[in-house]
């Protein structure tokens, strides 16, 4: 779902940069001093995992592939604000070093993956409520990560559909359904991986997560 340079009109690029910048400032303020420094290793290792996982495309259907985005994964581990910041770093490395996602479209990519992904924390939270049931946790994470993928695809479909290069091909009336179709399917992969991993991690009596409250204590 990384939008390359050239797909979006200048106006949309600027708008998405502005929207993402606003969310990033907000996340920075919320995240600053929210955690003790013992969280830093988990933050770094989970972000490194997301980078690695994004390299492994899995086949979907008819010669199309998808890969984990990992926004919900980071959001449940790190909380929404830190997740937004660390996902932005992953996307920045991809755009700057690996030419995966454009520079002009970076604002849009941050919005579609980092911000929507990070905010999916609140979907998980509203589904789990106070429950400690691990089935409910699995299903909540499954639903939230699927929804975040589909919403990201919807945003992407709108952004490209309103840009001139796609308007000749039919604009949003075509791009939105097409993006949704593929990402409804890719989202099932995202949801399965995210829910399985997080349920396993939650079960671990590990020192890895001992410093951590978001996942440990259920979602506050």
């Amino acid at each position, binding site marked *: 779902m990384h939008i390359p340079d*050239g797909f979006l009109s200048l106006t949309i690029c600027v708008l998405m940069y502005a929207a993402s910048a606003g969310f990033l400032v907000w996340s920075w303020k919320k995240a600053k001093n929210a*955690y003790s420094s013992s969280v830093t290793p988990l*933050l770094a290792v989970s972000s490194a995992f*997301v980078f690695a996982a994004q390299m492994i495309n899995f086949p979907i259907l008819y010669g199309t592939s998808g890969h984990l985005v990992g926004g919900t994964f980071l959001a449940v581990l790190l909380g929404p604000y830190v997740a937004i910041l660390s996902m932005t*770093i992953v996307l920045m490395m991809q755009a*700057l070093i*690996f030419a995966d996602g454009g520079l002009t479209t970076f604002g849009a990519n941050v919005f579609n993956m980092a911000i929507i992904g990070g905010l999916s924390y609140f979907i998980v939270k509203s589904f789990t409520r106070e429950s400690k049931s691990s089935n409910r946790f699995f299903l909540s994470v499954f639903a939230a990560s699927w929804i975040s993928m589909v919403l990201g695809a919807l945003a*992407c479909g709108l952004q490209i559909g309103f840009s001139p290069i*796609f308007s000749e091909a039919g604009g949003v009336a075509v791009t939105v359904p097409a993006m949704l179709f*593929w990402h409804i399917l890719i989202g099932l992969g995202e949801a399965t991986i995210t829910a399985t991993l997080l349920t396993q991690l939650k079960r671990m009596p590990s020192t890895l997560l001992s410093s951590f409250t978001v996942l440990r204590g259920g979602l506050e």
Partner: protein
Amino acid sequence: MNGHVKALILILVCLAALIPFASGDPDGLEKVAETLGVEETESLSSGLMPDYTVPTVENAYGSTLAAGFIGVFLVLGATLLLGKTITKHDKQ
């Protein structure tokens, strides 16, 4: 060994094992562009390691693996710095 170091090693091992199985098919957005006849233009910057390859490494697997490992450590370094910057420093 520290749990985080173990997790990092596991990530690198899994990455090395899974790269050969990664699908080279277009992803959702690339497929949509392809279907609609929209061609990708030259990107503004091709980066140091375009498409997750190290240009100087000829072997395809080795090239992607090297790019992946470098990327993992770049992300790790940058997010350690992020963590250092935003977290509270325990005064003890």
